[in-house]
C-alpha cells in the first residue's frame, strides 16, 4: 500500500481486499464489552475538516479512539483558517506539533494531494473527501457493505466483487462518492453503471471504467446493488433539472421501482438522505436499505485503514505468496 490514501484509484485489488478483510476483524471489536485496541497508542492523528461533516468526522474519530490514538479535532470554523491562514501554514503548524497522520476534508479537489506531496509535512495523509474529487474510505465502506450483504461475512473473506453489478444513481457530477466508487468497484471486479440525467453526468465520463445510462427503470432488473446519491444543492450553481418533482419521478427510488430489483439486491445510500427526493421513506426504512449499516461499517473500514497505514513501521504490504 502507498503511504497516503488520497484516491480509491491508488489501491490495487490486493490492497482493497486486505482492507476489507481487516475491517471484518475490526467489526468484531464492536461486539466486545471493551471496544478498544491498544494498537495506535502514542500516535497522534489530526482530523482537519475544512468542510462541514458529521458522519465522516465522527466515524473517523470513533475509529481513531478505538485504536487508542490521540485525536485532535480541527474544524475550519472558528480557527486560524477563518482568520486567513493558508493550507501550507496550517500544515506546518501541525507538523511542528508532531502529528503522525492527518485526516483531511477540504472543499477544493486536490487539497489532500497537495498536502501529501508538497513536502510540508511528514505525516500520512488520509483523504476524507475533497471537493468533487474523491472520498476513498466511503468507497471502501460501500464495497465492504456490498461484500457482506451479497457474499456473507465469512464467505466474503479474501474475495473481491467479481461479476457483481452495481448501479450508481443520481448527482454523479458533484459526487466524489461516485468517482471513488467507480474506481474501487472496478478494481474489485464489479460492473458499474451510472444512471443520471444528462446534465448531471460529468464531462469525460467515457474514460471512466463504467457504463452510463439515462434510464433507471431498465438498469434496475440488472442490479445486485443500487447506490442512491444525494442531489448536492450546495454545489449547484445552475439549473440541472427542471423541477425536483421531475427529478424524483425519473431518478428517485420508490417502492414500485424497488420491487423491480432482483430479490437479493440491496439499496445503498452514503447519507445524508433527502427523503422524498432521491429516495422515498418506504425504501429508506425497508430491510433492503443499508444506509445505517453503512455508517457502522464506516468505523470498521476506517479502523482498518488507520491500522494498515499507521500500525507498523511502514504501510502494510500485500501478501504475494499464496497461503
Amino acid at each position, binding site marked *: 500500500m502507498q503511504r497516503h490514501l488520497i484516491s480509491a484509484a491508488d489501491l490495487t485489488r490486493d490492497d482493497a481486499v486486505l482492507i476489507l478483510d481487516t475491517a471484518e*476483524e475490526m467489526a468484531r471489536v464492536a461486539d466486545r464489552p471493551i471496544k478498544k485496541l491498544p*494498537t495506535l497508542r502514542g500516535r497522534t492523528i489530526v482530523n482537519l475538516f475544512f468542510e462541514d461533516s458529521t458522519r465522516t468526522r465522527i466515524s473517523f474519530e470513533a475509529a481513531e479512539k478505538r485504536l487508542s490514538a490521540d485525536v485532535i479535532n480541527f474544524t475550519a470554523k472558528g480557527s486560524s483558517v477563518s482568520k486567513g491562514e493558508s493550507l501550507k501554514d496550517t500544515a506546518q503548524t501541525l507538523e511542528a506539533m508532531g502529528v503522525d497522520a492527518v485526516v483531511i476534508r477540504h472543499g477544493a479537489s486536490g487539497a489532500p494531494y497537495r498536502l501529501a506531496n508538497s513536502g510540508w509535512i511528514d505525516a500520512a495523509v488520509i483523504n476524507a473527501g475533497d471537493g468533487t474529487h474523491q472520498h476513498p474510505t466511503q468507497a471502501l465502506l460501500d464495497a465492504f457493505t456490498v461484500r457482506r450483504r451479497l457474499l456473507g461475512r465469512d464467505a466474503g473473506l479474501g474475495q473481491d466483487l467479481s461479476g457483481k453489478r452495481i448501479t450508481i444513481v443520481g448527482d454523479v457530477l458533484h459526487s466524489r462518492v461516485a468517482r471513488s466508487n467507480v474506481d474501487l468497484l472496478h478494481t474489485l471486479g464489479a460492473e458499474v453503471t451510472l444512471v443520471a440525467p444528462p446534465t448531471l453526468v460529468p464531462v469525460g465520463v467515457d474514460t471512466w471504467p463504467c457504463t452510463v445510462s439515462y434510464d433507471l427503470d431498465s438498469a434496475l432488473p440488472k442490479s445486485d446493488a443500487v447506490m442512491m446519491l444525494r442531489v448536492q444543492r450546495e454545489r449547484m450553481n445552475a439549473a440541472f433539472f427542471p423541477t425536483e418533482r421531475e427529478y424524483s419521478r425519473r431518478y428517485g427510488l420508490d417502492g414500485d421501482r424497488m420491487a423491480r430489483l432482483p430479490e437479493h439486491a440491496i439499496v445503498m445510500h452514503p447519507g445524508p438522505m433527502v427523503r422524498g427526493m432521491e429516495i422515498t421513506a418506504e425504501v429508506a426504512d425497508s430491510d433492503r436499505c443499508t444506509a445505517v449499516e453503512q455508517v457502522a461499517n464506516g468505523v470498521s473500514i476506517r479502523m482498518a485503514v488507520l491500522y494498515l497505514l499507521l*500500525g507498523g513501521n511502514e504501510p502494510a504490504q500485500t501478501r504475494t505468496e499464496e497461503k
Partner: protein
Amino acid sequence: MDKHDTPARPQASDARPVLEGPDIARVLTRIAHEIVERAKGADDVVLLGIPTRGVFLAQRLAAKLEQITDRTIPVGSLDITMYRDDLRMHPPRALARTDIPGDGIDGRLVVLVDDVLFSGRTIRAALDALNDIGRPRAVQLAVLVDRGHRELPIRADYVGKNLPTSLRETVKVQLAEEDGRDTVLLGAKAGQ
C-alpha cells in the same frame, strides 16, 4: 513469537523431526488428562488457541477433553496481532480471527493454547488481549513445545515436550490442518 518472524522457506534438509504424528497425538491426550485433573473435571474450561496453529491444537484438545468428560468444551481463537510489542518494528500484519465462545470467558478457566513457547512475548500479548475481553477465573497455558529462552517471567502449565534449544536453531511445528502433516522439526537457522 519469533518463530513467526522467520519467513516461510523450504525446510533445510538437516531439519530433524523431534515429534512425529503419533507422538503429538499422545502428548495432546496427556495434556487433556492433566487439564481434567488440575481443573477437577474441567467443567468451566474454555480453550482459546492462538492463531494459526494454536487454534488447531485447541480444537484437538477440546475433542480429547470431550471424550474424557463427555461434555462440550467451548473452544475459540484469540488473535494477538494488535497487542504485540513489536508492532512498530514491522509493516502491519494481516489480522487473524478472534472467536470467543458464546458464553464468554468471565469467571471461567481459560486455557491458552499455542504451538511453541519461546520468548513469552506472544503470551504476554494474549494476556493483554484477554483483559479487554473479560475477566476469567484463572488463565493457564498449554503448549506443544517449550523451547526455552524466555524473555519475560512466563511459564507454561501444560507442556507437550521440553526441547532444550540454542538460539541458532529453529523449531517448526507442522499440523495436518495447515501443513498437511503432523510433525515438529528442529533445524538450523538459515546462514548458520
